[in-house]
């Protein structure tokens, strides 16, 4: 079995499902949303997080790098990402926190051993949440869910829905709850902003729902991008077809999205003008609630 790339294991998570949870963030995502707030989880391969301010100039990295990616020029230390082959050698020798790996390679057992440490706090409701990136692009993630279920943990998955059908069907057996993103119901716009259309995401959701998956749908609201009434109507339409959806959560875009972007040599794309105001968020929620009522949907709460 292949190892999983884990960007973080966050204990005492209280916002990713019921009770106290441990959230496992897996690296790699099939989408490429321009607003992504976890850029370090997007790429499928591991990456070096580079913090020049923490560098003490010992040059240990340069001496082990097989591709000469660490360049030192008059006091400045540059990481040539174009040369980097992600071998992580520099990370292992760097004494400071200047070079760190975006993810740790871990087996399912190793991850589970970390998660189980908090079992005493999980109680009846708590457990494990898989997040990312996108967890359901690797079959090892399903192994992880299965093993967690075997240990009696509640399992939750945060998915963008753009996942292979066979993995999804497998995962359904071991997942108690899904947070499912619908980023835009306009497929062309979806493609423009995330790199892919939304057809697969929506058909996967309908499939999962028909197989009994409990879900909360999450909709990110990016001002001037997908806050239009047509999108809200589209969301209402999809929700009205779901039998096992419990809630819909609207999340405002937030501009501190790129916090780790600069460490990856990416542009920090946080743009405050895209943040919807509290009033706009309230309007969107009210509108959706109204539409759901119109469609006779009563089992979905709007959060």
């Amino acid at each position: 079995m292949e190892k999983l790339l884990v960007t973080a294991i966050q204990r005492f998570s209280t916002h990713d499902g019921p009770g106290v949870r441990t959230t496992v963030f897996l690296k790699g995502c099939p989408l490429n949303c321009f607003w992504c707030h976890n850029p370090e989880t997007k790429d499928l391969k591991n990456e070096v997080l580079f913090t020049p301010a923490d560098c003490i100039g010992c040059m240990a990295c340069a001496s082990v790098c097989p591709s000469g990616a660490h360049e030192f020029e008059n006091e400045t230390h540059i990481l040539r990402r174009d040369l980097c082959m992600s071998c992580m050698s520099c990370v292992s020798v760097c004494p400071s926190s200047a070079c760190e790996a975006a993810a740790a390679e871990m087996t399912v057992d190793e991850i589970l051993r970390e998660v189980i440490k908090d079992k005493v706090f999980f109680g009846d409701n708590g457990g494990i949440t898989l997040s990312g990136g996108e967890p359901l692009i690797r079959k090892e993630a399903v192994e992880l869910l299965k093993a967690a279920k075997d240990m009696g943990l509640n399992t939750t998955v945060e998915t963008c829905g753009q996942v292979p059908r066979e993995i999804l069907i497998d995962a359904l057996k071991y997942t108690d709850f899904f947070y499912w993103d619908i980023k835009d119901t306009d497929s062309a716009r979806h493609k423009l902003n995330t790199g892919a259309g939304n057809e697969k995401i929506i058909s996967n959701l309908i499939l999962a729902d028909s197989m009994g998956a409990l879900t909360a749908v999450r909709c990110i609201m990016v001002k001037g991008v997908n806050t239009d009434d047509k999108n809200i109507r589209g969301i209402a339409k999809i929700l009205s077809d779901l039998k096992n959806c419990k809630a819909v959560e609207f999340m405002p875009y937030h501009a501190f999205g790129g916090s780790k972007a600069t460490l990856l040599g990416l542009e920090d794309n946080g743009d405050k003008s895209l943040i919807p105001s509290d009033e706009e968020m309230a309007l969107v929620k009210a509108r959706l609630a109204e539409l759901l009522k119109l469609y006779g949907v009563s089992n979905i709460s709007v959060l």
Partner: protein
Amino acid sequence: MIFGTASKNERPVRLSESTRQFAYESLHGKYGDEAVSHGAVTLDDVEDFDMLDDYGKYDIAVRRIAEQAPLRITESERVCGAATLGLAIRHVVPATRNGNAVYGSMSHLTCGFDRAVNEGIDEYEKRIDLRLSDTENLDQRQIRFLQSLRNTVASMRIWHKRYLDATKDSRPDLYENLKVVPFSKPRNFHQAVQSLWFCFAFTRLCGNWPGLGRIDEYLGEYLKRDLRDGKITTDEAREILASMFIKGCEWIESDTAPGSGDAQHYQNIVLGGLGPDGIDITNEVTYLVLDIVEELPIGDFPITVRLSKNSPEKLYRRVCEVQRHGGGVVAVYNEELILKAMTDAGYRYSEALRFANDGCWEVQVPGKTYFTYIPFDSLSILQRRVLKKDGKDIEYESFDSLYACFKDELGKTVFDLCSGVQNAWVKDGKWLPKFPMSVVALFEDGCIENARDYGEGGPVYNVVSPHIGGAPDVGNSLYVIDKLCFKEKRLTLKELYQALSDNWQGYEALRQYVTNKLTYYGNDCDESDSYTVRVIDDFAEITHSYHSDEINFVPGVSTFGRQIEWAPVREAVPFGFKKGDILSGNLSPTPGTDAAGATAIIKSYCKSNLVRQTTGAALDIKLFPSSVEGENGLEAMIALIKGFIALGGFFMQTDVVDAETLRAAQENPKEYKTLSVRVSGWNARFVTLNKEWQQMIIERTEQGI
């Protein structure tokens, strides 16, 4: 008016507008300022004062205080009596001669106010007289002490009479209750609260800072009866109780000089838990107290709730709902573990069941215990007597030999501390004289019977607790030494010593390595936690092995903020901190070394065998408001406490606060006057802490636990 909170939910409003206004004034220093303006009574005119024996001097001081202290009766108060002399806030008896206070006063005890309320003070007078009638078996000091107790009661009567006279016409509501209590038994809940407050206020008036103990246990029955008989409503009862809490803030000043925090005078309260019959006593008073501190940001009465897996679910919820507003006002005890810790240390189970604390968080049997603790810095033992001796570096063949030396030195320190106390206090099996403490002795079982003062072996239990500080720093140091110098042989001890004596100058790569690549105590990593656990557990066994017939020497873990005083005299440490850095407080991780969050900290802490730390070991947990929002956040807080109990924790204080708020408070202290944080056992108004304290709390907060 709006009282601040760390939560998104505003504080509920249940109390009347006038009570809330009263609270606002009290919390903003109105009465503290008044007190300071008339600090003390003077003894300058007492003739031949210097000729008097110590009880003679003390008795005059107490009597004068009762006769002359200003009275205060505020419009909104429902209970009467006030500790109006400002010098009491400085922890002395507020009576001066030539400008100097003549006697110190007592704290770190919970008086037996339960007995005082239930019996009435008249009974005490009878007991003293009875004891005095048997002079044949009393020595001179015992007689003088009993006479001093008699004077205490007489002085209390004087003070009481003054309040009776003052309320007779203007405040019949107060007057009617004062006619009965505290000298006779209360006839209802309102009188019981008045009786408690009056006794408490009198001890405070005379400069002492006692705790109140399990007020729900001893007030609960009165309220139950009144509610049953329809004599009172829950809302009325809340107003009465709130009045006592608000009056208890009478020592807050509007403009307190920065220091180690002012807002607490060890007036601890313990709620919930098992009663004498082994049945949970949680009752209406328990919930009313929580209502009050949920509504009013009162940090002056730190509350600790005895919880076990059998405690009512509602109590867990209410505790967490209050905790969520921040201020760290409510902490929790793991009742089952503490009962075991106490019976293991020799208390009868029926006595252990009564446990409360000393006014801070060290557990003891209230109303019958003399208590003091002796803090020491275990890191300095490692640095000055193990890694170095007489300033010279010491080499070790193996980690085991190094640790053996540490354990040996730790043992010597503990034994020296214990025998130091033993020899200073007791000679040939007899207690040596201290200074008079009759006012608190009156409320301590054993003192009348033994005709011995509070500090001279009078109480039923005499407990002295060596408290180890800096253990996580010792653990982390040992971990690095063992791992790098012995197991991996990355560097020699000599090289490490050099780096430390150079305060890491020139060893930045190594320092970065130990700082970033190793995991320390507080991250739930068995390997590194094991060193701290070993230090803590060895310390407990060493302390338990010290024997004295007169004094129970039992272990505990704390620093109470001393990590700040210790910082400048400590050396650089192997885990990367430099000279002068502020290290671990209590049994919490060294700031900045814990990255895995609250659950991991709790797990690391619980790995020690805490049942052996008889007086306790404190853990401080800081949570961000955002992580405990909503119903799920509340559930998560409950889960934290339940996990802490299941894992064998002792005492945990949870604070909900965010760094931004704290920084804002640092910049605009005026706007954040009532923002209080819990720091190692007590609450302080954040703005009254000095810069380093504030910084430490902000840093801890920022780690995003």
